[in-house]
């Protein structure tokens, strides 16, 4: 049968130069839904505790969704899967733009790279040929120039390129893979994995390619229903007009905006400069840009036409970038944020972790843990755009404290000591994304469980904000919990159900290639829409319940990957500051006094473990749960860890220094 997913895997070993094409077994689709799910299984099979994230044995897998390449609305996304140098665990980073469509039209469902090249190379993939090409002339170049040079080298303006900038070359723990110029698979250090392999870019030509679906008429009709449903929720229009930074100012007023390195929850003034509306008012916004097949277009293409930063151009800033480069450093002068955003995109950094490194540095400086000796005499200050630009330069050039900061706040605080773990806002090695968990309890639970670390992009539980957020959000809460009254972010009850549902649908979205905004922010693409489009595109025969069960299977396998690495319930934590300090403790003028202490989190975790058939004593899925999900095969690699979680040494990314 014709299908939009054929399990075709291109495997390239950079050590030997060997290029192989395999076809994966049927279960890669029927059991794992392709995309993120099939990639998680490949990572499970091909790597393990002995794999060094920056060693030649690590893999990096580019996996568009199983529906990517079709016109299903928002289905153009890809998953980049690897063992993370930041966390030492499973990592999937998602990327939009045109990359996924190009890979699928070039005839592949997964591109997997192993080994390490001696000299810089890039990988060229088209229907006609697959080639490892010399990149020594491109190494050292930034993202925009890399795109230009490769297009020139191959004399093809239409190539789709995913590359690293200097961040990846220096193997920063938060180096991104940058797709089609500005679309970042940002988190977890995928760019460092490429840098370690001396792989500058993956270059894809879609020319002449074709993607089929099992039932063209049924698919066209399911797709049209999906489009109508996506646009029915008001949040889709919010995304179109204002992008992801639509509500930064409202979050500030509600006391939900992390500021000053998470020590406060609001700004005294200037929050309106950190919004999508501001980009329009100041004339920075030139176009709303879509990823492949997206009906919304939340990306912002921006240019600065005058003043000190005239000539700055890039995409963004996104909400997370405004919050990370702005609010969390106390910076409200948007010109500096636009400049720093351009630098981060050109160097190929994750803006969340880069901003986190900067705010960690400023607080460390304020507390005397780092001094002008570490900063070439520069005084680091809050609310100072020059401080941010200076730190980015130091990091990318590996000067002074910059060399340490490039490894992320976990490694930096381990090295600096002096109690700096308390303001290194990270868990499991990953800097927390910019959500104030002390006032949003589903987010808190989800962040504690997330296999990547405390981050929003495996479980975006926006529905808990209720109808203040989107028209359909309360309907989603009612569907999950049976009652709309649970659509409030500061309730503890039912958080386990809300988080589980979001984890599952997020896994399905990633596997099929859908943008999670369509399934967990605008709520148009629901379980039925997912199974209808999946069945008509790939020929599966899944009910909405079965497709969500496949989502749970993916989530569970990813959990098991980390358990095999030595993680356990003891790693299901949030950053020290979030668990131990309320924002009110830190600043008595705070508007809310919510806290996320370990007892509250412990109660929510326990409910989650029980709901999902996990052992509350150690956080391991029970053997019968694994069996039910068809994951019985993982048990033999977990049995030993399962019984010794209390006394086992935690992986490095999950430890706090002995001084705790």
């Amino acid at each position, binding site marked *: 049968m014709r299908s939009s997913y054929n399990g075709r895997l291109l495997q390239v070993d950079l050590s030997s130069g060997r290029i192989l094409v395999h076809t994966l077994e049927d279960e890669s689709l029927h059991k794992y839904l392709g995309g993120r799910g099939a990639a998680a299984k490949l990572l499970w099979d091909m790597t393990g505790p002995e794999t060094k994230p920056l060693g030649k044995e690590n893999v990096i897998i580019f996996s568009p969704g199983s529906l990517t390449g079709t016109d299903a609305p928002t289905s153009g996304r890809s998953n980049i899967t690897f063992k993370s140098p930041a966390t030492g665990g499973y990592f999937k980073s998602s990327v939009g733009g045109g990359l996924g469509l190009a890979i699928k*039209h070039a005839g592949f469902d997964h591109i997997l790279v192993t080994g390490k090249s001696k000299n810089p190379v890039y990988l060229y993939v088209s229907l006609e040929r697959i080639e490892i090409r010399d990149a020594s002339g491109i190494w050292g170049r930034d993202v925009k120039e890399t795109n230009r040079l490769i297009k020139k080298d191959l004399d093809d*303006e239409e190539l789709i390129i995913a590359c690293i900038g200097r961040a990846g070359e220096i193997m920063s723990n938060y180096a991104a893979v940058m797709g*089609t110029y500005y679309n970042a698979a940002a988190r977890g250090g995928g760019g460092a994995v490429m840098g370690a392999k001396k792989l500058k870019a993956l270059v894809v030509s879609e*020319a002449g390619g074709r993607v089929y679906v099992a039932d063209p008429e049924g698919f066209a009709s399911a797709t049209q229903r999906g489009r109508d449903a996506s646009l029915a929720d008001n949040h889709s229009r919010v995304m*179109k007009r204002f992008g992801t930074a639509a509500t930064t100012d409202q979050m500030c007023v509600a006391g939900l905006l992390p500021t000053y390195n998470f020590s406060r929850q609001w700004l005294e003034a200037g929050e309106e400069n950190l919004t999508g509306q501001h980009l329009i008012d100041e004339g920075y916004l030139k176009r*709303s840009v879509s990823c492949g097949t997206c009906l919304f*277009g939340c990306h912002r293409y921006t240019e600065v036409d005058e003043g000190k930063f005239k000539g700055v151009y890039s995409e963004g800033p996104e909400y997370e970038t405004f919050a990370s480069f702005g609010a969390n450093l106390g910076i409200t002068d948007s010109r500096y944020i636009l400049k720093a955003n351009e630098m981060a995109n050109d160097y190929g950094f994750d803006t969340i972790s880069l901003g986190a490194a900067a705010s960690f540095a400023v607080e460390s400086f304020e507390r005397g843990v780092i001094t002008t000796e570490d900063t070439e005499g520069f005084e680091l200050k809050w609310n100072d755009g020059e401080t941010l630009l200076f730190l980015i330069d130091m990091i990318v050039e590996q000067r002074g404290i910059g060399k340490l900061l490039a490894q992320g706040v976990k490694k930096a605080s381990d090295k600096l000591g002096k109690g700096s773990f308390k303001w290194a806002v990270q868990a499991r090695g990953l800097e927390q994304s910019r959500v104030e968990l002390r006032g949003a309890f589903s987010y808190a639970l989800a962040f504690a469980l997330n296999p990547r670390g405390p981050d929003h992009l495996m479980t975006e539980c926006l529905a808990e904000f209720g109808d203040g957020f989107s028209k359909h959000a309360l309907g989603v809460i009612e569907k999950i919990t049976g009652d709309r009254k649970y659509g409030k972010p500061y309730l503890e009850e039912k958080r386990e159900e809300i988080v589980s549902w979001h984890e599952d649908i997020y896994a399905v979205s990633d596997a099929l290639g859908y943008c999670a905004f369509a399934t967990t922010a605008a709520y148009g693409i629901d379980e039925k829409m997912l199974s209808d489009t999946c069945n008509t595109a790939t020929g599966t025969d899944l009910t909405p319940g079965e497709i969500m069960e496949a989502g749970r299977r993916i989530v569970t396998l990813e959990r098991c990957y980390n358990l095999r690495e030595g993680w356990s319930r003891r790693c299901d934590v949030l950053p020290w500051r979030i668990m131990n300090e309320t924002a009110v403790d830190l600043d008595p003028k705070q508007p809310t006094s919510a806290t996320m202490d370990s007892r509250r989190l412990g109660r929510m975790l326990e409910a989650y473990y029980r709901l999902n058939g996990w052992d509350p004593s150690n956080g391991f899925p029970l053997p019968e749960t694994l069996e039910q999900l068809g994951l019985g095969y993982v048990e033999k690699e977990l049995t030993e860890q399962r019984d010794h979680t209390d006394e086992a040494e935690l992986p490095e990314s999950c430890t706090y220094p002995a001084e705790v």
Partner: protein
Amino acid sequence: MGFIDKQTDNCSGCRSCELACSLKHYGFFDFHKSRIRIIHREERSEIEIHQCIQCNERSCIEACPADALSIDKDFGYIRLDEQACIGCKACLKACKYNGVLWDDETGTPLICDLCGGDPECIKPCRLHGALTASEKEVVR
């Protein structure tokens, strides 16, 4: 409806229109079988929409040495007689609006046929508003 109105400034480069066109005409997705093409130069976010605009000049028809092109009586689009077409690309060169695309596989032009009055390309574009149904009368 009459024909398709284009607002290039509203295009976000999602390329759904290209895929929807290909699915409608061939039952599969192939960017190079589409009668609409989005040229998106991402670095500066420059976009061009290449698609027949049912202009009044009819330069493609006049340029065709084989009389393979004509105006559809019912909907006003440019109709191709594939048997008559000799694949000379004169129509492609004559169109100053980039309205004629080329099918390398068959060696014949790809020209928007308005999907017989219910164009697929505008359906994913509702929120973007780059492609909308226009009531304007077309030349018959």
